[in-house]
């Protein structure tokens, strides 16, 4: 019985892993198929340029980043040779590199992977002085506001709450949307607030908890004040980015802190809102200090167990080249990582099929990215993230005084990889 089963499994396994006996080597690229199947066009171009040396095939991953990671780590931990290339959320670099699930870029290829790309994007692909991926796209949050409600965008979170108080008193839309669900989005909110208040979660090496007393308390106060105010939408505790976008399109919101995808979406679903819609930097915590947000985005990594690592590096370099970045920006709204593209009219003037300009906010975004920072870079990032979420959710119940220490204890435990989270 066992033998039959084992034999059957072995047969299936070879059937899946095969496909390159003698012919063109096939490279499997594990990535979420972005809207519009934009990666399909990139694959076609790169396959053509490779002139038969390799052939890339897309293996679709789920849309949710947590589920993407779960699928990838399950395969990688089992040494799956099927993964040649993979799209990695920038927060996974340290974890994957430390476990030796991904390969460092060969010395002579590093320049091609990093030259002309945003510092923050290159930094996100770096672990212990080696580059573990080629940056593909980036992202950061902006403040979206309505010019018919507030002429000047609020510079700080406190000002934003005051402005919303006034709007509420006047009987106008006054909701403030953020991401309060128990997931990574909440870490992004907290990390951006903490960075803007001048604090850090971990030290430079990612080995010790820092969480400086004063900035951490300030960040927690803002989280609590926004969540406990009458401007927090009732569904804040389950809101992800898309709930915020929905709330904005419905017209009940005065302020929205979110990524750039809300712009084309508002153009499509609420055209009358568009002319009143404007953008500004993520609000500061301290009125005298500019805000700092945490960057997002994806890098392409090379699976450590694949059969053709050299070809995979070549393919990744092609998939993330300027031409494909421009197409990803035009067709799927993915922000490029090559600095020069932010001055390239092909990107800044890009329009979708409906004739809507996709990146009118490109200059503001570039400024935000130049000042941006990264979430903690540690192999224990997933545990650190879980620890932060478990202490901070729901944000309305935060106690800024007591929770600084609770947060520190939880992250310290997470860094040891011990205990339940």
């Amino acid at each position, binding site marked *: 019985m066992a033998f039959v089963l084992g034999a059957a499994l072995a047969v299936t396994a070879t059937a899946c892993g095969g496909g390159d006996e003698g012919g063109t080597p096939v490279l499997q690229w594990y990535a979420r198929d972005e809207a519009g199947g934009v990666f399909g066009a990139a694959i076609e171009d790169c396959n053509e340029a490779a002139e038969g040396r390799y052939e890339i095939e897309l293996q679709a991953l789920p849309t949710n980043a947590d589920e993407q990671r779960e699928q990838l780590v399950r395969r990688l931990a089992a040494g799956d040779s099927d993964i040649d290339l993979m799209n990695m959320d920038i927060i996974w670099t340290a974890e994957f590199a430390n476990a030796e699930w991904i390969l460092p870029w060969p010395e002579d290829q590093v320049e091609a992977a990093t030259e002309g790309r945003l510092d923050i994007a290159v930094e996100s692909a770096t672990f212990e002085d080696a580059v573990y991926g080629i940056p593909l796209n980036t992202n950061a949050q902006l403040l979206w506001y309505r010019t018919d409600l507030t002429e000047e965008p609020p510079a700080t979170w406190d000002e934003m709450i005051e402005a919303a108080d006034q709007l509420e008193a006047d009987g106008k839309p006054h909701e403030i949307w953020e991401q309060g669900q*128990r997931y990574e989005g909440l870490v992004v909110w907290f990390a951006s607030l903490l960075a803007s208040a001048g604090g850090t979660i971990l030290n430079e090496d990612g080995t010790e908890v820092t969480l400086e007393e004063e900035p951490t308390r300030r960040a927690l106060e803002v989280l609590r004040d926004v969540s406990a105010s009458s401007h927090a939408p009732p*569904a804040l505790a*389950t809101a992800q980015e898309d709930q915020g976008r929905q709330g904005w399109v419905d017209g009940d919101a005065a302020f929205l802190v979110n990524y750039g995808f809300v712009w084309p979406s508002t153009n499509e679903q609420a055209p009358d809102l568009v002319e009143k819609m404007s953008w500004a930097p993520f609000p500061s915590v301290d009125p005298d200090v500019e805000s700092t947000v945490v960057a997002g985005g994806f890098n392409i990594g090379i699976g450590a167990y694949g059969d053709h690592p050299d070809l995979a590096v070549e393919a990744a370099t092609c998939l993330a080249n300027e031409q494909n970045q421009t197409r990803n920006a035009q067709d799927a709204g993915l922000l490029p990582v090559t600095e020069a593209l932010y001055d390239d009219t092909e990107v800044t003037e890009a329009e979708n099929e409906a004739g809507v300009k996709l990146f009118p906010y490109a200059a503001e975004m570039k400024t935000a990215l130049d000042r941006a920072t990264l979430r903690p870079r540690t192999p224990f990032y997933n545990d650190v993230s879980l620890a932060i979420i478990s202490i901070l959710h729901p944000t309305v119940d935060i106690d800024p005084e007591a929770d600084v220490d609770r947060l520190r204890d939880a992250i310290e435990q997470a860094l040891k*990889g011990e205990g339940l989270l």
Partner: protein
Amino acid sequence: MTATTTAPAAERPAEGKKGALSARARSERKLGWMLCAPAVAVMLLVTAYPIGYAIWLSTQRYDLRFPEDRGFVGADNYTAVLGNSLWWRDLANTAVIMIISVAIELVLGFALAFVMHRAIFGRGMVRSAILVPYGIITVVAAFAWRFAFDPTTGFVNGLANTEQSWFTESWSSYFVIILAEVWKTTPFMSLLLLAGFTLVPQDVVNAARVDGASTVYRLRKVIIPLMKPAILVAVLFRTMDAFRIFDSVFVMTRGAQGTENVSILGYKTLVSRLNLGLGSAVSVLIFVCVIIIAFVFVKGFGANLSQQRGEAP
């Protein structure tokens, strides 16, 4: 099964005169073992081995992300789990879902079983209609319930004229989870209870009726006592199932709003954090809890599994 139960019966008359018959008994026993050997082997392969492996893992420091950093840690993982308030909180959450949903299912399931038992017209229709929810895949059902209660896409708020975001508060999250659980598994409960109804001889009920016993009295003093074995088995099965509830909670809240139960905790530790040592300790503890539940039912309340199968006690 048949072979093992008949073997001792065949042996007894053989005690008088040893020899030929005893040899026959021996060979019959051997045949019995041979017949059930494949089943035993498969069971060992698919249950005993994974359970043993999980127990071994739970004594190790074993994190897939840190392949070099492994080793025997004894009971450290268990002390880490049992010493953490999160485990006890999740255990209490699990108990809340388990007790409330099984209690509602028992009452509803009893009523439905009664209807199925007594339905004269369209008996087949009634029975299949009741069984439909049980035929739906749990994850699909969980998504259906989630979307129904979603404030933006769902219809429940429209029907009930409320503006509730159901999954943002603890009580309402529990309400939807338990509702989905009851909807989904009451048919299973009623099916087991229906089998119990058929155990009640109609003559006894008729005799009670002739003696002037009222409907309630007949139910309390005749039908339920005769059905007790079936009820206990149904409740036992459902309690063990409800203790291990995972999919509904995972789909609806992912454990947020204080609905995290022990299965979600195990999933988080094993699949998301890849901490196989700690996660296996959680799994083994869940297993121990299920054994305790079964033990309490079998020894404490006298649930008799063989009676349910219609064998003589």
